[in-house]
């Protein structure tokens, strides 16, 4: 157990989308410098840099990424890259927090970054399958294919139809339409989802998060002498792992990494699931959010998809609002950036700065970031102190 109070000084995110004319360096520069400006800090005032990114090696043939990013920061500080597939951002933040708790650093910058659209769909599909196992890759199971198997298991076990799952994408597109940084800002209907082409049965195009570019950054500190106007602190940061392959899991309809990490997080924060006002959920696919709200304790087992369909997690209608940013589906999913974007969104919500998508009186927020098909989960709980 740690004793440091981790405060968020400033956050920033680039727009997410197909950013053809923006390079990875430019994305990093924009997010980091906007976050520093929001924090009132200069680059040299940062003690270390943590970077979350999955694909720079596979797609861009660039490893040693943290050293590259630190050039864009403009100060030669210690720099680290963390990778856990789509949980890279959450893992970068967790490790940044660990360094503050260890007393090694006092103020650090955490960046999540991904550039995907320089590459063909084939290449991207192949690259994303690196999040799974060799066995899954050689079975020809793509990343959507793995989640499709989960979807089938879930639909069969709880008697849920495709239309009910489709309401999850509909909710997230509605939220995205209220987010100027979102990749997709147009609402969609259940009929739109049902009509969209199949990717891996039963998942269709509009059940799947898109390919995106983007970067998000957050500056955190354990230095209590630095005052901020609307303080937000991170009161829990937990990570848990599970088997790499889906077929080795105990359950096909629940991610025990999420259950374990979130239980540890609730315990660390001294809270219950019902205390959460707003959550950013890792909806790489519609089925992911249905399973997530159950694993996080927001819904009873088997009720997740139905609860979402009944608007229990929708802005202005529900109790625990999920994915006000639009989630991965509508806001976009630049893989390594997502975990940090979630923190940016929750921070804005807890500060009352979320504009048209503000969750009323949001005090406690939760970020749920998952790697692969559930091999690793990073859960963060944030508290608004104003």
């Amino acid at each position: 157990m740690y004793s440091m109070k981790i405060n968020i000084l400033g956050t920033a995110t680039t727009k997410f989308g197909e950013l053809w004319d923006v390079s990875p360096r430019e994305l990093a520069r924009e997010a980091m410098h906007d976050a520093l400006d929001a924090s009132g800090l200069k680059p040299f005032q940062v003690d270390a840099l943590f970077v979350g990114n999955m694909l720079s090696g596979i797609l861009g043939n660039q490893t040693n990424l943290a050293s590259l990013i630190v050039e864009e920061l403009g100060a030669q500080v210690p720099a680290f890259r963390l990778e856990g597939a789509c949980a890279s951002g959450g893992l970068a933040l967790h490790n940044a927090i660990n360094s503050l708790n260890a007393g090694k650093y006092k103020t650090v910058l955490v960046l999540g970054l991904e550039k995907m659209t320089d590459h063909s769909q084939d290449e991207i599909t192949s690259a994303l399958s690196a999040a799974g196992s060799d066995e899954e890759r050689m079975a020809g199971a793509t990343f959507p294919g793995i989640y499709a198997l989960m979807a089938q298991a879930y639909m069969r076990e709880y008697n849920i139809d495709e239309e009910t799952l489709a309401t999850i994408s509909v909710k997230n597109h509605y939220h995205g339409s209220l987010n100027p940084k979102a990749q997709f800002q147009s609402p969609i209907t259940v009929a739109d989802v049902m009509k969209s082409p199949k990717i891996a049965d039963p998942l269709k195009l509009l059940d799947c998060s898109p390919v995106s570019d983007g970067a998000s950054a957050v500056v955190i500190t354990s230095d209590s002498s630095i005052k901020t106007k609307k303080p937000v602190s991170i009161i829990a940061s937990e990570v848990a792992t599970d088997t790499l392959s889906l077929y080795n899991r105990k359950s096909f309809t629940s991610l025990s990494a999420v259950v374990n990490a979130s239980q540890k997080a609730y315990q660390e924060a001294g809270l219950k699931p019902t205390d959460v006002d707003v959550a950013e959920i890792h909806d790489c696919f519609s089925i992911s959010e249905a399973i997530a709200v159950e694993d996080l304790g927001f819904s009873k087992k088997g009720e997740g998809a139905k609860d979402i369909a009944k608007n229990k997690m929708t802005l202005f209608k529900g109790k625990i609002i999920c994915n006000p940013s639009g989630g991965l589906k509508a806001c976009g999913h630049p893989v390594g950036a997502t975990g940090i974007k979630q923190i940016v969104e929750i921070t804005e919500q807890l500060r009352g700065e979320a504009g048209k998508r503000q969750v009323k009186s949001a005090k406690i927020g939760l970020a749920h970031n998952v790697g692969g098909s559930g091999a690793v989960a990073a859960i963060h709980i944030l508290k608004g102190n104003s």
Partner: protein
Amino acid sequence: MKTSPVKLWRRQKDIISVIGKRGKILLWTIIRVPAKSFVDQAPYPVVIVRMDDGKKMVGQLVDYEKENLVAGQKVQAVLRRLKTEGKEDAIYYHIKFKPL
């Protein structure tokens, strides 16, 4: 996905013990947007199988008809070519499943 002849050789023992073994489909999906290596085989089903000895495996389903895509369908592990290799690459043999 680049396949290495060394990996093929190292995995022989695992494959030898599985060829011909039987199991039942637990879950299935049809991959319609494949990774690069499998573009010429798509669309194709991928199944999670519980083998008769209790172990679970994942693999491509081959030689199937529509009515075989159901939980509980009996399958047998067979050796097939994994994918279409380059003209100068070694051939990678791998376990796939066919309905019984």
